[in-house]
């Protein structure tokens, strides 16, 4: 057990270094969302409620997490194509240890994202500060699980060239189907039902409700939380199965 934890720690440390030493990952996971948070607030917060910081900052946190799937997937796809993963598979490390070492180091990264975007949001609009902010930061760890699971799944299926395209679809879905950029009132019932059935809007709503107040506990907290956890579990189960299958090949 101790040796297993030591291996997970060593592999996790390596995976963090591989991600943060890539300037593109920092630009997309931190720079771009931060730029969008400030720009959209400054441009639109007086015209539309949607862009007030209490809505925008939680939305940006989840949006930035969508990029985790791209960079986690890219790392795994590269490790597969360069045979590093195959080689490590001859070592004492098990496939579960590999998966944990890809997933766990992403959690501190997502924590940094949440803290940064909420802090910047709070500086721009001090009304954001309060006891709900640390709670939202902690819940951000849960919303990130879906994207981490999808990243491991993409990385296990795709090669290094196709991973960008596939992950972009997920990022676009988070952007367009979360309702963070436009009010959903004007949309048709079918579209809203679809958005409610998918994880993207539920993740954003969970974060926004944490800042705004949950209201009805079922619709404000438990429903989006359970839907999100179900998708996260499905993503991780598929990721583990596909990863193990690919390693055996």
């Amino acid at each position: 057990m101790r040796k297993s934890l030591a291996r997970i720690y060593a592999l996790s440390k390596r995976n963090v270094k591989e991600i943060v030493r890539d300037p593109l990952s920092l630009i997309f996971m931190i720079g771009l969302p931060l730029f969008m948070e400030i720009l959209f607030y400054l441009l639109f917060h007086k015209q539309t409620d949607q862009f007030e910081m209490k809505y925008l900052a939680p939305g940006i946190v989840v949006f930035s997490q969508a990029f985790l799937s791209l960079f986690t997937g890219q790392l795994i796809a590269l490790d597969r194509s360069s045979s590093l993963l195959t080689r490590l598979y001859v070592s004492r490390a098990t496939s579960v240890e590999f998966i944990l070492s890809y997933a766990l180091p992403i959690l501190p990264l997502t924590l940094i994202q949440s803290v940064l975007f909420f802090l910047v949001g709070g500086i721009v609009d001090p009304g954001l500060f309060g006891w709900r902010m640390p709670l939202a930061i902690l819940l951000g760890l849960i919303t990130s699980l879906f994207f981490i699971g999808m990243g491991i799944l993409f990385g296990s299926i795709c090669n290094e060239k196709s991973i960008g395209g596939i992950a972009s679809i997920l990022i676009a879905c988070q952007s367009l189907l979360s309702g963070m950029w436009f009010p959903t009132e004007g949309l048709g019932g079918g579209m809203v039902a679809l958005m409610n059935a998918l994880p993207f809007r539920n993740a954003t709503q969970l974060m926004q409700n944490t800042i705004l107040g949950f209201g009805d506990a079922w619709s404000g907290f438990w429903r989006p939380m359970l839907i999100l956890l179900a998708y996260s579990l499905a993503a991780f189960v598929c990721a583990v199965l596909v990863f193990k299958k690919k390693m055996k090949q």
Partner: protein
Amino acid sequence: MAAIETKKLTKSYKDLIAVDGLDLTIEEGELFSLLGVNGAGKTTTVKMLSTLVKPTAGEATVLGYTLGRDDAKIKELVDISMQETAVARKLTVKENVELFARIAGQTGEEIEKTEREVFDAFGLGKVANKKAAELSGGWQRKLSIALALVSKPKLLFLDEPTLGLDVIARRELWRVIEGLRGKMTIILTTHYMEEAEALSDRIGIMRDGKLLFVGTKEELYQKTGKNDVENAFIEVVSGGDRNA
């Protein structure tokens, strides 16, 4: 004790028999070269014996442990350097060695000792703080092979270790491999006949998944009537019949 003993070891895919009934014994401490043209089954053999690929039929023992049943034990005793350069590209050379040492269960002073040994053997000290991605192809390959030694394996698989290297880098690696002789059992697959000639205690020649010849260079010359490995190899492979 035999480091490797296989009986009718076979790997087949849908329409292809990659390794066909391999019977092979390799003694501990031997440097054994496996030769063959592309698709002969060398890499599949290495992958089966290193637990990466499950055999379809037959049986094998690796360092006394049964393949398939004792894979966890085998993994503790073997390591592999793949055909492709396989390093963590954004880590420095030192960080790469540390990573593999920690995965092998080493800690503290043990890791430092391993670093010194590996740096000395491969001359990696001068690039210790460079990221792997910034190294030339030759240095990356050296690092890739060095990482296979970090776990201090009793059995080392070197799959085409000098593929794509220039003649100087190749000779340097030969020197390193030569230095490992006797310290562990080494199984080398290669396309380069002069490599097998210079390094091996014994040679195995494969074609279409079958082992056509096993023996020393001298036995190979005697069987084929040739006086160099390249011509003897061509004779065996084009002849088609098992010579030993």
